[in-house]
């Protein structure tokens, strides 16, 4: 362990004599570049192993928007690939059609997949649904994240299915997951709070996995910067409408003042799941009566959205 206090005011790594580039405020440990990169890689490997997220023979579709989270996810999964037996990765990019935002991240996704030598598939909202997100949203901007979320989910699931995927990996990080827990508590939505999207689906849908769920947003940004993969990309213009933005700011402030808040929130979710088995009746998986997709009610979210929008979302998804 490094004991000298600092180099030019820069603390030393807790594991060697190199200058630190990152501090984990919860553990008070400092990391130099190489120990930080190794720590993040190991944490993701541990998340995957302990939760059995990827097993031999899996074809993992990675949702690659080209933003920071999915970029880090693909880089980390590719780096871990040699340790897994007979596992293949396919990157899937959904272009929603968000003017002035998505063009740049799609270019970034193309470059990354090419550099890593990963098979890369694209789908677009106009091809799938007959219009861009900008066109679909006109006048409904405050609902942007809800509408986009449903359409993206449908698009990603379809593209993953077409790729023959057995798992669908997304770049949700610790901050995202902690925000979701708090939002579900604020909404009083217990079923959603304890839902496990990576659970066995009996072949009805492709299980979604979140290998970055134990890595914070700041750690992801630092990881990319240290691997020379940081791109100063814009934020989605619709994000300002989301409740999540307020929750994000509040949680981030709490995390700063009380390090470990987000992790404890996630631990609370796990404890609720364990302490209340059966408290929330598992809804039987049904088939949407309009499109046949698996869902919990009579209509899937996509078909409900079609009705709400009062228009036909056309395209080749049925």
């Amino acid at each position: 362990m490094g004991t000298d206090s600092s180099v030019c005011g820069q603390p030393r790594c807790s594991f060697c004599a190199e200058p630190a580039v990152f501090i984990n405020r919860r553990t008070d440990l400092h990391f130099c570049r190489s120990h930080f990169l190794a720590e993040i890689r190991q944490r993701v490997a541990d998340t995957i192993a302990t939760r059995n997220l990827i097993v031999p023979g899996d074809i993992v579709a990675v949702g690659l928007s080209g933003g920071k989270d999915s970029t880090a996810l693909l880089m980390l999964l590719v780096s871990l690939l040699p340790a897994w037996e007979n596992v293949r990765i396919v990157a899937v990019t959904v272009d929603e059609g968000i003017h002035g935002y998505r063009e740049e991240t799609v270019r970034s996704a193309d470059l990354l997949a090419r550099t890593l030598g990963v098979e890369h598939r694209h789908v677009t909202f106009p091809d799938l649904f007959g219009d861009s997100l900008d066109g679909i949203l006109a006048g409904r901007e405050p609902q942007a994240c809800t509408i986009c979320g449903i359409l993206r989910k449908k698009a990603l699931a379809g593209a993953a299915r077409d790729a023959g995927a057995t798992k669908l990996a997304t770049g949700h990080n610790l901050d995202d997951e902690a925000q979701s827990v708090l939002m579900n508590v604020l909404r009083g939505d217990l079923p959603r709070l304890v839902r496990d999207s990576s659970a066995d689906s009996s072949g009805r849908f492709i299980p979604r996995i979140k290998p970055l769920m134990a890595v914070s947003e700041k750690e992801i940004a630092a990881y990319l910067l240290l691997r020379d993969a940081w791109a100063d990309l814009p934020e989605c213009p619709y994000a300002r409408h989301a409740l999540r933005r307020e929750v994000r700011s509040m949680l981030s402030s709490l995390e700063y003042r009380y390090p470990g808040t987000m992790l404890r929130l996630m631990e609370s979710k796990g404890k609720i799941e364990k302490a209340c088995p059966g408290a929330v009746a598992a809804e039987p998986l049904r088939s949407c009566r309009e499109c046949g997709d698996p869902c919990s009610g009579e209509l899937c979210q996509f078909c409900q959205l079609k009705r709400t929008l009062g228009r036909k979302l056309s395209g080749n998804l049925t």
Partner: protein
Amino acid sequence: MKLILPDRSERVIAGENVPLDTILRNEGINPLEVIVSRNGTLIPEDTVVGGDDVIRLIRIAHGG
């Protein structure tokens, strides 16, 4: 020292041996929402800065 803010505007600020954390809080910035480099190298927020240091703050955009 020179401070380059997330909007790329630049400012010279006075101070010797100031913890970066203090500078960020004085600017009203939550250290968890930015990553910071000094003279091009990533530094943790408990680094002490001053002199001719060029401190660049990069806002972490949500999403992706």
